């Protein structure tokens, strides 16, 4: 029997192509709400390799990816045979066809690469995997990231080309080459407009390092940071000091996304996807720093879309994972996701507000990119899942809603909201 979208059986002689007409009869808001992934999929398994300092992995990047995927399967309680799709971002070097062949995947049904550098695509990868499952392209999709910067060129180092053209021609000759050099300009303007203190950046860094001291997976485990150590650290690019910058690491991480129904049958408590959004606002990628909304982390128009799909408001979010390429990005991203007004940064970003279990807005509870591992944010996705499951090393009691904000300040960013069964 054929079914229409609202699950009413079609009458004899009624054709499926009448469906769009039935949809048009409904109001726009209702139609929009039908185009959602809310509650349709869940993260059922997570896995990561040991996290290494840059250059210290005994395994090559491809092996790291395979190990992370197999660990996620183990965590979910599924056989790797069940995987039928892959999603990644930031031009990951490990192609799904090679992974599928290596692991003997029976049938590859979906692969997806989100454009854009850095970690702006990490939540999008999980979102794209969810969309594929929700729409029936595939049943069990892995969102993954492998990163062995010891084996390949390091981020933050300029390419050795003697000649530059395009956007780089207007930046590199003036000494603007690394990601931080490109983004510090945004933050300086933001901090000027809203009179933000440097203590805001220090609190964000301290939150990650504080949480990492309870996380044996963290590269900065047993390596605490203090206010004094932060203040004494060298400038990298003003307004950022050394401890405002992410680490460089080797490792891999993976999440397994399946339908909500299937997730309920597996061994872990599902982290349901409530909403996912990606993109950026007007002319965000305009060359030579000519974005219309410049003092921004690129989420200004994305965040409202995300909350609308998730049917969640910022005050209902229990725990925040916000990608720290640099603390300046976290500052603007938290503002753009509605957790505080830009004028309130100095009061809001106090360390006690950012620490689990009792802070107003527990932030980066695994230690994040700064202190757990710079796995391009996939570690933060895993941490959001652990919070929903209730087994984080810095658990926020009763966390039902977790937000994950990816790769602030790049030109294509993404965010995702996960929730427990109680939120559906």
């Amino acid at each position: 029997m054929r079914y229409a979208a609202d699950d009413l059986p079609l009458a004899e002689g009624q054709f499926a192509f009448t469906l769009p007409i039935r949809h048009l009869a409904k109001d726009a808001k209702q139609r929009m709400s039908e185009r959602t992934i809310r509650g349709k999929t869940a993260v059922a398994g997570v896995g990561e390799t040991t996290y290494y300092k840059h250059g210290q992995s005994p395994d090559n990047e491809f092996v790291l990816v395979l190990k992370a995927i197999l660990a996620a399967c183990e965590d979910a309680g599924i056989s790797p045979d069940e995987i039928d799709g892959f999603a990644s971002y930031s031009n990951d070097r490990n192609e799904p066809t090679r992974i599928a062949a290596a692991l003997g995947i029976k049938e590859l049904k979906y692969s997806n690469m989100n454009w854009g550098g850095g970690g702006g695509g990490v939540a999008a990868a999980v979102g794209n995997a969810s969309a594929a499952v929700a729409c029936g392209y595939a049943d069990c999709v892995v969102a993954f990231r492998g990163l062995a910067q010891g084996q390949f060129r390091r981020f933050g180092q300029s390419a050795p080309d003697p000649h530059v053209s395009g956007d780089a021609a207007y930046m590199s000759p003036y000494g603007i080459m690394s990601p931080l050099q490109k983004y510090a300009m945004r933050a300086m303007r933001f901090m000027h407009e809203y009179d933000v203190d440097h203590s805001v950046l220090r609190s964000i860094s301290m939150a990650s390092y504080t949480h990492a001291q309870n996380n044996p997976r963290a590269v900065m485990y047993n390596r605490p940071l203090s206010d004094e150590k932060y203040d004494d650290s060298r400038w990298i690019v003003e307004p950022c000091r050394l401890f405002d910058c992410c680490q460089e690491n080797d490792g891999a991480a993976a999440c397994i996304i399946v339908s909500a129904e299937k997730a309920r049958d597996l061994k872990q408590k599902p982290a349901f996807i409530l909403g996912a959004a990606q993109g950026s606002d007007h002319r965000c990628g305009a060359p030579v720093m000519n974005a219309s909304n410049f003092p921004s982390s690129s989420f200004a128009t994305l965040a409202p879309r995300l909350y609308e799909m998730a049917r969640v408001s910022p005050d209902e979010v229990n725990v925040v994972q916000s990608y720290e390429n640099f603390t300046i990005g976290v500052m603007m991203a938290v503002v753009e996701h509605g957790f505080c007004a830009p004028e309130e940064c100095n009061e809001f970003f106090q360390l006690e507000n950012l620490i689990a279990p009792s802070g107003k807005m527990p932030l980066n509870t695994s230690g994040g990119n700064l202190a757990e591992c710079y796995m391009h944010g996939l570690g933060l996705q895993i941490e959001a899942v652990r919070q929903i499951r209730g087994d984080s090393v810095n658990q926020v009691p009763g966390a039902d809603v977790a937000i994950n904000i990816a790769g602030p300040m790049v030109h294509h960013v993404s965010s995702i909201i996960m929730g427990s069964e109680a939120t559906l």
Partner: protein
Amino acid sequence: MSESYLPKGMPIPVPQGDGLDKSYWEATRHGELVVQKCSDCDTWQWGPEWVCHNCRSFNMTWKQIEPSGRIYSWERPWHPVHPALKDQGPYLVVLVELPQAGNVRMIGNLLGDPHQDVVIGSKVEAVFEPHDDAEPPYTLVQWRLAAK
């Protein structure tokens, strides 16, 4: 070769292979600052693109403008990420907005003491910095605080 703000060995800018920004780099060699303007809707545009972002016309022209502006944002890099900057120490980069050209923004170094306090909103004027010995030769547009 005249003195430059940053050391020798920095990346050499060359026009895009498709010719999009050839006019800009040629103009700087003559000590002139040009930006794109749409012939159809008069929208100023920077950086260069083949089409007007406002009216989608392909009739973009190059207009010479007064080489002055005001500091919109700034940063002071300390950590060198390029071999030529290894012994440089801190340097200043400013993002300058140009009110006479629709507030488009340009990047350059702020000449003078690299440790100076920078005030957003300060008026600046362009200084053309030729690199005649480079292959190919080019001229950078730098900025200095305007005389009061």
